[in-house]
Structure formats: structure tokens, C-alpha cells
């Protein structure tokens, strides 16, 4: 017996009854007996036999392999403590930086100092210890210019869009390079501060209106009204 009780694609609240029966439990749903409930405020999605609630709000929960933007908060003996906007502080060991192994103690702050922004990847994470990061990899390392925007991690999928459609449109229309961290930290580099400003405004707009229809068009229009020069039109998408 499998019954869907709540309306798919609608907003559900914590404790709301979603379904009854042998459905597969997706994120943010839990079972009591045969009844399946929502654990948070979000959009109810049904995908075959899987029931999921896509959260409308919430912080970032680290996952191995994620690209994250973080801020160095402490320089230790063998690595750095990084704030990645998660419930846990992350560690970046000196051994996970490129170049010759084992920089000496006093060299550590020369690489990354307190307050620096770094783009890194989550190497390891489980319930018993804080996330472990690495900056060995293309494009990873210290960010020295551009702007860092922080939005709710729950909205990152919408910012990227289906097959990257939203983020490609934003890059093209604002003429900015944009790197999206899974933890909600988005790096923006533009040819001018004005381009960067428009890109930042567009990103905040996605965060605010992520769950509405027609968002891509509204944002494209907002950017067009701002008169920033985007990429020269090409026949293929970025």
C-alpha cells in the first residue's frame, strides 16, 4: 500500500504527513510506523517511490567532494582552521597544500593567514570528527580579489539551475566569472565593480525567490535594466 497524502511541489511544514506506505525515504523525511513525515519547512517532491523534502532554509552540511569557500580563522602548528559556514569548523592540514611537502611552522601564515578566503574541497567528514579540507587541485587556493557572497546553502542547487542553466546565464549576462561553493559561498570576479554589483544582486535575488516560477526570466530582465555589458553574444551557451 502506498499513498501520497501531501500535495507534491507544495510547501510542507515540519511534522506534516507526506505519505503512507513503503516509499523510499529521501532527505528530510522520516517514518513512524507506516506514516512518513516532513522534518523541515520545504517543498515536497515525489520521484517514483522516493519522497523528499527540499528545504527552503538551512545551513550547510559538509559532504565529501564538495567545493567550499571558507575563511581562515586560525593558524595552527600543522594546518589551518577554516570557517566553512557549517555546524563544524573545518581543518586544512599543511600536507593538503600543493608544493613541496611540510612547510615549516613559520611559513604557514605566509601561505594562508587569518582572514584569508580559500576555495577548497572537502576531503573527509564523518560524525566523529570535523571536516578535512584540501586545496590540492585546479582552481583551489587563496582568493585575492573579487567579491565573496554568502547565501543559504539550500539555494545553491537553484543558483546552479538544471544542467547549469541559471549559473551560465548569470555569467554570460553580467560578464562575470562566478564560482559556486556548495556551502553557499559564491565567488564573483567582474571586469568592473558595477558588473560585480549586478551579479551580487542577481545572486541574492535567486536566494530570495528560489521557489518561484519564471525566476530565470526575471533575473535576466533585471540585469538587462542595469545596462552592464555582458559577454559578447555567442551562438553557443557557455
Amino acid at each position, binding site marked *: 500500500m502506498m499513498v501520497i497524502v501531501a500535495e507534491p511541489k507544495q510547501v510542507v511544514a515540519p511534522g506534516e504527513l507526506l505519505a503512507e506506505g513503503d516509499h523510499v525515504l529521501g532527505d528530510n523525511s522520516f517514518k513512524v510506523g507506516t506514516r512518513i513525515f516532513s522534518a523541515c519547512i520545504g517543498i515536497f517532491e515525489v520521484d517514483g517511490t522516493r519522497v523528499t523534502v527540499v528545504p527552503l532554509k538551512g*545551513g550547510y552540511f559538509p559532504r565529501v567532494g564538495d567545493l567550499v569557500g571558507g575563511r581562515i580563522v586560525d593558524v595552527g602548528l600543522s594546518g589551518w582552521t577554516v570557517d566553512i559556514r557549517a555546524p563544524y569548523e573545518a581543518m586544512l592540514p599543511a600536507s593538503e597544500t600543493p608544493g613541496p611537502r611540510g612547510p615549516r611552522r613559520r611559513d604557514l601564515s605566509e601561505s594562508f593567514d587569518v582572514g584569508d578566503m580559500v576555495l577548497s574541497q572537502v576531503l573527509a567528514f564523518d560524525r566523529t570528527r570535523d571536516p578535512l579540507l584540501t586545496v590540492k587541485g585546479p582552481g583551489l587556493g587563496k582568493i585575492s580579489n573579487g567579491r565573496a557572497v554568502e547565501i*543559504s546553502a*539550500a539555494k545553491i542547487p537553484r543558483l546552479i539551475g538544471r544542467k547549469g542553466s541559471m549559473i551560465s546565464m548569470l555569467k554570460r549576462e553580467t560578464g562575470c566569472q562566478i564560482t559556486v561553493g556548495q556551502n553557499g559561498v559564491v565567488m564573483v570576479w567582474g571586469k568592473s565593480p558595477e558588473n560585480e554589483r549586478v551579479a551580487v544582486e542577481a545572486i541574492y535575488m535567486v536566494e530570495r525567490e528560489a521557489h*518561484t516560477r519564471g525566476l530565470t526570466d526575471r533575473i535576466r530582465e533585471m540585469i538587462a535594466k542595469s545596462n552592464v555589458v555582458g559577454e559578447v553574444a555567442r551562438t553557443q551557451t557557455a
Partner: protein
Amino acid sequence: MPEPKQPEKLIDDKGIRIDGRRLDQLRPIKLEVGILDKADGSAYIEQGKNKILVGVYGPREAHPKHIALPDRAVLRCRYRMAPFSVDERKNPAPSRREMELSKVIRESLESVVLTDLYPRTTIDVFIEVLQSDGGSRCAGITAASLALADAGIPMRELVAACAVGKIQGHMALDLSDAEDKYGEADLPVAWVPNANLVTLLQMDGILTPNEFEKGLTMALDACKTIHGMQQEALKKKYLVIKEVAEEREETEVVA
């Protein structure tokens, strides 16, 4: 400010209370979600003259580290009354009453928060009573549930709370400050609808077992109503953004 005088009667001959309510009537309730910018989640409640703001932070790294638990989050709760919230100005230093209420409120919320998803962290709930008029711990719990949900913290369900009491020999719902002060008993109750369990229960005064049962039924009925309002308040915020955004889209297409 002079203390208001003791009313002559709490219930008149027609069964109407001093604020015009019947015995089984709730005070008007207003709920708002997500009004603070810095807190991870927030909610505001007005219930009668009660005005309570709740902010939630977390899950975040436990500080100091020694309070952390290896297998679940620590829930921290602080119930606090602003100095101007009561008739006679309250000294800002924490009182024993505030400490007791912080504890029972935390315990009523702890059962619904899925704390084992976040070991070694804290979830902080700050309940600020800006104006108090009886039943503030219950109103605080109602708003705190919303603030936790607004923070995106996974929960089994929302907790709804309401107090009943005895005034002039009759069981009455949702006592105001004067009714609590001059009545015979006060019974705050918090309830979770799915699990159908009472998660906060205290009593002050004298009640017969029958009076208690009658009062409890009244309180749980009210909690059901309040729970419906909580769900509506949570969803309303997102529905409004949806409507405004889509309305904008429609007018532009027409133009």
C-alpha cells in the same frame, strides 16, 4: 508605573471575563516568522498583550568545547524578560524564575529536535519577552518551535503550548496576568500533535483531579488550534514571496 488594582470580579454574571472573553476562548494570536536578520531562525508572537521574540542560532560548533556531546547536539535555551516587560520594572539580572522556565521550555522542545543529526554542536534558542501578560512561557514555546523550523533545523514536528487556569471556581483557557495573579490555579501545557504527548506540564495552585482533566482537555484543544496557526505562519512567508514574484512576472508579460 502603578500596579493595576485587583479587579472586583474575574467573571461577571453572564460568564464573561474582564477582557470580554468566554471561559473557553483564546486571546487573539499573531505569529510572524523570519523577522530577524542575524539569527539563523526567528519568530515573533503576540498573544493578548504578550509580545515575545525568539531567535535561534545553530547548529553551530559548541563553545565552550566541554559542553559538547559526542553523539548529538546540545540544545540551549534562555528565557528572558525585558526590564520593561512587566508592570514593575524588572532588574536585568537573571532571576530564579527565568532559570526554571528556561529549563522546562528546553525540555519541552528537546523531544522534537532531531539532535542526533548534529553531534558535537549546540542549537541555541533565545526567548525574549518584550511584554508579558500571563502565559508567556507557553507563547514562548509556540514561537520557539517556529524559530527552530525557520532556522531549517530538522524536527519531528512543531510544539504548541497554551495555559489554562481556575478563576472564581471555573476552569478558564489562556489566563491573562490579572487572572493568573488573582485566580486559584495556573496550568501551562505544551503538546506535540503527531506523537500526541504532553511535553510541558506545570501547575501552580489547587485543583481537584476532575478540574485538572477538564482543564487539560481545554488546553489540548487550544494547542490543536495554535498548531494550525503555526503551520500557516510558517508557510505564509514563502507563499507571499511566491505570489509577489509571480505577480510581477505577469504584469511585465502583459505590458
